[in-house]
């Protein structure tokens, strides 16, 4: 046998390769997934128009949904890791879990609080009790009915320290929970808290089935009231969700959603072009700018903000004039243009659309003034300029280093020297938490409500206040007032004041908000983007061939 092979192995090898390639070519076209969906355009149009102000109002009735509506493939760079919505922290987890679970309240594209599992709510006169009326006829994926006992069990689970729930600190103000009947829940609050509504809309406050909590299956068998049911999880590769036929809203309009892991964003883009991927949340502006026709790009200003954090607890930054000098020496638009290729908008401290602040309070009114900056530095006694040790995170977001360098160049002209230290995530996080820096180039997350967004940083006993590096009685008063004020207009005024104070005292230099990018093929309709990055409107999205 050996003699037979000897001298013939080379042609045999070539034959093997040819066989392999032929098999590949023949078997290749059997493609089971992708656009099997048919016309759903009428539905989609209607769905789009109802997004303003809550989507519980019935969409004008549609043609009966066609039999096969397809598998919507979402390409993303990471996989869900924690299945328990109370413990999940990664974006990838949120994006999947928010389709499987609902919370008591929801958010619309303007981040206004709207009904969800709770149809109505009202505060007592003294603001210390919040009554929620639950929606009827809602069931979990396993068939059991949703009622007040599930709400109570879920909230108690979150409040229990042992659970380690991520959002616990946001709802610590709840001191008592009662359920007078199956359809009503009353929350007793320690103090007036207007922000609690937005907190209740968070996916970390999803409503779980009390049975599931007792059985301890929450982290293994997701069972929610959401538009999609948990179907299959190939860890590290994909998560597939199936449509919930009994969903209490109209929809969903696809049979399945598959969240597919493709670690490289440019590969995702190639997947979109090839039609293998229908929808993708992308983050790198460089990649997004390559998404040309016929791909569709949704751009929404994000809640997260790019900022140059200053550590006012350090001697060199203790004098407000120094910080103001930095603020004056920065050209925010130029940072956007050079580091982010123009993909962004200048922002003040609060990025929520309803509370978005402009340039009030900025020492140079938002225009770059290098002379003024030098003057301020001189007044503070730093005629020779200052040097700041600046940490920059590598790899977490694509523009970090570019921003650092842009700022470095700008500030150098005013005699402010940034010594950039580009650090790997773990190292950066350690230094950041320890406030071991003069300055930090950061991308911090925003929240739909200004109170939870900043309470940890700008209240003197906030647990991230050391990282913020600055505190004042004025800020404390404003934060407390903002939390308690239930009248929307008055609340906006308070936070405007807060923003102005922050811009004047300049403990941080707020730069810009980027965009939340969603790139889709042209067959995807009915989707609406959200500033907080949520993909909740996939529940109204359809695929047309």
């Amino acid at each position, binding site marked *: 046998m050996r003699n037979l092979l000897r001298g013939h192995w080379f042609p045999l090898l070539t034959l093997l390769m040819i066989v392999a390639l032929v098999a590949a070519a023949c078997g290749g076209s059997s493609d089971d997934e992708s656009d099997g969906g048919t016309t759903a355009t009428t539905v989609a149009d209607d769905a789009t128009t109802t997004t303003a102000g809550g989507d519980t109002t019935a969409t004008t009735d549609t043609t009966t949904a066609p039999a096969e509506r397809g598998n919507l493939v979402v390409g993303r760079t990471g996989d869900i890791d924690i299945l328990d919505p109370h413990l999940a922290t990664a974006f990838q987890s949120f994006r999947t879990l928010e389709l499987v679970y609902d919370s008591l309240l929801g958010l619309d594209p303007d981040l206004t609080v709207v009904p969800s599992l709770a149809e109505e709510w009202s505060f007592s006169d003294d603001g210390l009790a919040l009554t929620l009326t639950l929606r009827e006829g809602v069931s979990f994926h396993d068939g059991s009915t949703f009622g007040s006992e599930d709400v109570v069990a879920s909230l108690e689970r979150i409040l229990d320290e042992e659970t*380690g729930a991520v959002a616990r600190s946001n709802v610590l103000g709840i001191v008592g929970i009662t359920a007078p009947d199956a359809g009503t829940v009353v929350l007793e609050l320690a103090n007036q808290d207007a922000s609690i509504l937005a907190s209740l809309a968070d996916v970390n406050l999803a409503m779980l089935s009390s049975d599931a909590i007792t059985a301890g299956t929450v982290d293994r068998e997701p069972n929610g009231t959401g538009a999609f049911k948990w179907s299959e999880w190939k860890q*590290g590769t994909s998560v597939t969700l199936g449509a919930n036929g009994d969903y209490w809203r109209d929809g969903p309009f696809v049979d399945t959603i598959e969240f597919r892991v493709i670690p490289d964003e440019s590969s995702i883009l190639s997947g979109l072009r090839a039609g293998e991927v229908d929808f993708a949340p992308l983050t790198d502006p460089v990649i997004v700018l390559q998404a040309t026709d016929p791909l569709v790009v949704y751009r929404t200003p994000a809640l997260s903000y790019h900022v140059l954090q200053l550590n006012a607890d350090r001697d060199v930054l203790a004098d407000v004039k120094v910080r103001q000098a930095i603020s004056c020496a920065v050209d925010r638009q130029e940072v956007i243009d050079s580091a982010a290729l123009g993909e962004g908008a200048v922002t003040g401290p609060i990025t929520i659309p309803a509370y978005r602040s402009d340039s009030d309070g900025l020492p140079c009114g938002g225009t770059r003034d290098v002379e003024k900056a030098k003057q301020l530095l001189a007044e503070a006694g730093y005629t020779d300029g200052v040097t700041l040790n600046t940490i920059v995170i590598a790899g977490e977001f694509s523009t970090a280093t570019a921003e650092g360098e842009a700022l470095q160049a700008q500030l150098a002209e005013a005699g402010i020297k940034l010594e950039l230290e580009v650090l790997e995530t773990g190292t950066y996080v350690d230094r950041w938490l320890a406030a071991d820096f003069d300055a930090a180039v950061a991308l911090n997350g925003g929240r739909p409500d200004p109170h939870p967004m900043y309470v940890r940083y700008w209240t003197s006993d906030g647990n991230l206040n050391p990282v913020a590096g600055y505190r004042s009685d004025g800020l404390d008063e404003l934060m407390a007032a903002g939390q308690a004020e239930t009248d929307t207009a008055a609340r906006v005024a308070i936070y405007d004041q807060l923003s102005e104070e922050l811009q004047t005292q300049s403990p941080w230099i707020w730069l810009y908000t980027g965009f939340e990018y969603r790139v889709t093929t042209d067959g995807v309709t009915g989707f609406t983007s959200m500033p907080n990055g949520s993909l909740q409107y996939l529940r109204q999205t359809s695929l047309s061939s």
Partner: protein
Amino acid sequence: MTRRFFLKRLGGALLTLFGVAVFVFVVLRLIPGDEITAMLGIESGTLTEVQRRALESYFGLDEPPISQFFGWLGNVMTGNLGYSMRSGVSVASLIADALPVTIELAVLSMLFGIVIGVPTGIFAATRQGKAPDVVAQSFGLIGLAIPNFVIGTFLITITASQFGYFPNAAGYVPPWEDLGLNLQQMLFPAISLGIVLAGSIMRTMRSAFLEVSTEPFVRTARGKGLSRRRVKWVVIFRNASIPVLTITGIQFGYLLGGTVVIEQIFALPGLGRLVLTAINQRELAVVQSTVLVIAAMFVIINLLVDLLYARIDPRIEIQ
């Protein structure tokens, strides 16, 4: 080959693996950040003491390092490679899912490299100094010089943009589920890796071939009246293939270590990706056990290469 030989190699292998285990263990713990900061990022600053202690106990971070090390090692010896903290899935099953992907990719890349590299090397050697030789060597050099991910990205960009073809975005399928799609998904990655391999194999083949050609026994063969073809293949090639086979074997070992970037670009859920993700997530158990498995495979490959070497070169004796 005797029992003594195997015992000696086994002993050496165990020692090597122990060294790897210690090294990985120590390095991972020297990296700043732990599972908690990896999971929560800057949010980890919001944890209360109670929460932090609960998480530390959950991740096993509260035990002293030495007991962590031997606890882990002891588990490994009994077949328990640990668990992924976030998902609760056993490391063994994670590796079992990733290993076939990496092996398949390694084998196909190897085949590609050999199929391109060996004939090209012989071709260049037999036309030494002439134009075809120079061209072949240049290609070989280019193949070696270009990083594999550049080739990969280049291939994807062309086929996806121009022809709308990118099977890797369809989600990896193992060969037993859909052989056709699987081979399509492996084609470009194997080419990307194979071209680089081909470069190195070509050069080794060429120089080995040239060297053997000048050996006296080649003249003896011709002197017996053997045909040119027979002399080329049975005499020269057979001898020249020895160094090529050893290089190939070692390269295969490296491929098994996981070619992370290629796996990332082509969305292949192999060992490289498994380790990389685990490192970013500070999933220490996953990293430690997987690296140990990779090291073990490398050791086995080395042993097999040595055995193969002894098999094809009768002058080598296994002591």
